[in-house]
């Protein structure tokens, strides 16, 4: 019991701290790396939830692909803004906003809202026992039977995104 | 429209890919070179000025150290200049020894050039193979001259000493590891080394990717920039001073001038060098035949201890390993040369870098430096 709490606590702490650092890190590259850490620890929580498949995908897509893409964008976008971010004089309002208070407030509001929805909804309030977890095989089978059309749509979306990104970033050649 | 900022990169003077202490400033747009400029002078040793305070014989060791990878050819060029100035007749045997040594030196120098280019392109093994074979030439040279790299072997009017006993050997087929003679080396070189280079690199697909179409040098540009030697020949110009302006006894030898395609690229420069090694081996074989058939010991004429050439000047064009070596010698009648001007092919070829590099990738840069095969000792002198 305690071990579980400890594990979750550690992961949650890392997640939140790194997410906080994404907002407050001075350098944008640091922010990107903190974001990768945050994604990683979220993947750890997925593992705790016994969702290995999603945990691996989380690392693969978020920590791998998206972080690298963002890093590349940072490198390519502007050398100047990597190193120094403009330090402006802040008003009190900005300071409050920058303090992270908003995060807590918004988070709590969301949590409360979700708890409310959770209680008014028809979701069973008793957690089901551990037996019978999903296997990748089942996920795959469902994906290619019940969700064939969404799957194809998602594929087309990715394809379009790829083509779009290439067209947008390709240098115009005469 | 704002473009991505260019990155200024400094290659050298202490950089693993620049041959010697060359510094190249490169501006990169992403990975593409937009501007390149060689910065030289890190190895300047005042060779030309230094020569003015030496006697003619004393200059010879300094010529070794200009293009230190091709020492014999430099000595040869300088000796030819002094001999022309003084009108000295060189004994026939000495001429043959000189030519044989010069061609062996050319093989040796090309081996290093090719090996270094291979190393730059990441083929470490090719480099070590070149080293291994060069070692064999060095051992031969050590037996002949006493020096391994800088020989001080040629003398004005001849050579310092005759070939040692039993070094010529006999022609044989194939490789004989125990055969430590010049013939043994040539046999080994022709039957083993040259096919190996072809197998390992020339016909290697990755090597061809890296070199074919990289930095093409049209013949008119090559001529306009004063390129010579393998670089010029790779651009398709059939120009070899040994054939076109024969000096010494080169008109007695049979050999071909390898040329590249119309627009010589790095691969052409490579192939021309490999081919030149083959031709040099041919010349060495002919010289060896003559030397074996005509024994003798007259290798240098009797000359006064202190040479005082008559007043005048002379210019010698010499086909060195890397291109045209020019020696402009001015004598005021004293024991020391009034002026020694050394025209070095590497210095000229280095000026091609800003022309060749732009538009290519950073990785091509080192292929280009490797393919024009510069020796900084000669660039800076």
């Amino acid at each position: 019991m305690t071990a579980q709490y400890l594990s979750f606590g550690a992961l949650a702490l890392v997640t939140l701290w790194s997410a906080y650092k994404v907002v407050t890190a001075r350098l944008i590259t640091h922010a990107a790396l903190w974001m990768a850490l945050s994604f990683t620890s979220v993947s750890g929580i997925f593992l705790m939830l016994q969702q290995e498949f999603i945990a691996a995908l989380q690392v693969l897509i978020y920590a791998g692909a998206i972080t690298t893409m963002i890093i590349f964008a940072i490198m390519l976008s502007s050398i100047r803004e990597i190193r120094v971010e403009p330090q402006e004089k802040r008003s009190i309002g900005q300071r409050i906003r920058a303090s992270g208070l908003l995060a807590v407030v918004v988070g709590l509001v969301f949590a409360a809202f979700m708890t409310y929805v959770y209680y008014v909804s028809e979701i069973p309030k008793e957690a089901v026992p551990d037996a019978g977890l999903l296997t990748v095989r089942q996920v795959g089978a469902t994906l290619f039977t019940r969700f064939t059309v969404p799957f194809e749509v998602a594929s087309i979306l990715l394809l379009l995104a790829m083509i779009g990104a290439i067209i947008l970033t390709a240098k115009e050649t005469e | 429209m704002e473009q991505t900022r260019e990155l200024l990169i400094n290659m050298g003077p202490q950089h693993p890919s620049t041959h010697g202490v060359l510094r190249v400033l490169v501006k990169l747009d992403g990975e593409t070179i937009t501007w390149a400029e060689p910065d030289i002078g890190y190895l300047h040793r005042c060779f030309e000025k230094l020569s003015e305070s030496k006697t003619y014989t004393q200059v010879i060791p300094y010529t070794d150290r200009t293009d230190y990878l091709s020492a014999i050819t430099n000595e040869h060029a300088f000796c030819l200049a002094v001999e022309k100035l003084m009108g000295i007749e060189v004994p026939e045997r000495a001429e043959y020894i000189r030519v044989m040594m010069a061609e062996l030196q050319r093989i040796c120098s090309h081996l290093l050039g090719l090996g270094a280019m291979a190393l730059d392109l990441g083929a470490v093994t090719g480099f070590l193979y070149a080293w291994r074979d060069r070692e064999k030439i060095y051992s031969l040279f050590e037996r002949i001259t006493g020096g391994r790299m800088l020989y001080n072997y040629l003398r004005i009017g001849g050579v310092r000493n005759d070939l040692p006993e039993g070094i010529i050997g006999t022609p044989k087929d194939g490789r004989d590891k125990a055969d430590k003679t010049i013939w043994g080396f040539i046999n080994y070189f022709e039957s083993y080394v040259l096919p190996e280079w072809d197998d390992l690199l020339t016909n290697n697909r990755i090597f061809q990717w890296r070199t074919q179409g990289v930095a093409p040098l049209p013949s008119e540009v090559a001529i306009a920039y004063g390129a010579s030697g393998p670089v010029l020949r790779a651009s398709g110009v059939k120009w070899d001073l040994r054939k076109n302006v024969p000096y010494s006894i080169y008109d007695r030898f049979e050999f071909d001038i390898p040329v590249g395609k119309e627009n010589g690229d790095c691969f052409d420069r490579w192939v021309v060098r490999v081919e030149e090694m083959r031709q040099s081996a041919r010349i060495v074989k002919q010289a060896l035949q003559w030397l074996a058939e005509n024994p003798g010991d007259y290798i240098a004429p009797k000359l006064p201890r202190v040479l005082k050439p008559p007043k005048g000047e002379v210019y010698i064009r010499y086909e060195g390993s890397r291109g045209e070596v020019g020696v402009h010698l001015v004598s005021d009648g004293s024991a020391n040369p009034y002026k020694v001007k050394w025209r070095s092919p590497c210095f000229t070829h280095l000026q091609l870098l800003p022309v060749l590099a732009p538009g290519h990738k950073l990785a091509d840069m080192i292929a280009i430096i490797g393919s024009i095969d510069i020796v900084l000792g000669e660039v800076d002198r």
Partner: protein
Amino acid sequence: MQLPIYFPLGLGALLFGIGLWGALTRTNAVRILMFIELMLNGVNLNLMTFTRYYYPENATGPILTLFVMTVAAAEASIGLAIILQIVRNRGTVEVDKVDLLKG
């Protein structure tokens, strides 16, 4: 799984909150993209929590998460491409300076 469900749910909500906070306060376009990814992560966490606690044998949750990730990846690639174009054309990544449409 004996962990109370509020733990992962709360974590997801907080993650979402931090993401929202950042997206609202920061002006750097690349950073805003990062915060959107953080928010999506919070959402995914919630999805997976509910799946794990109540429908462990139903593949819909993971698949929905998969789609969220797909969309996130697509969004990131297109978003970054657009940002790169903005940088090339306007020389800035600050969203409040990209105001050509403002009179």
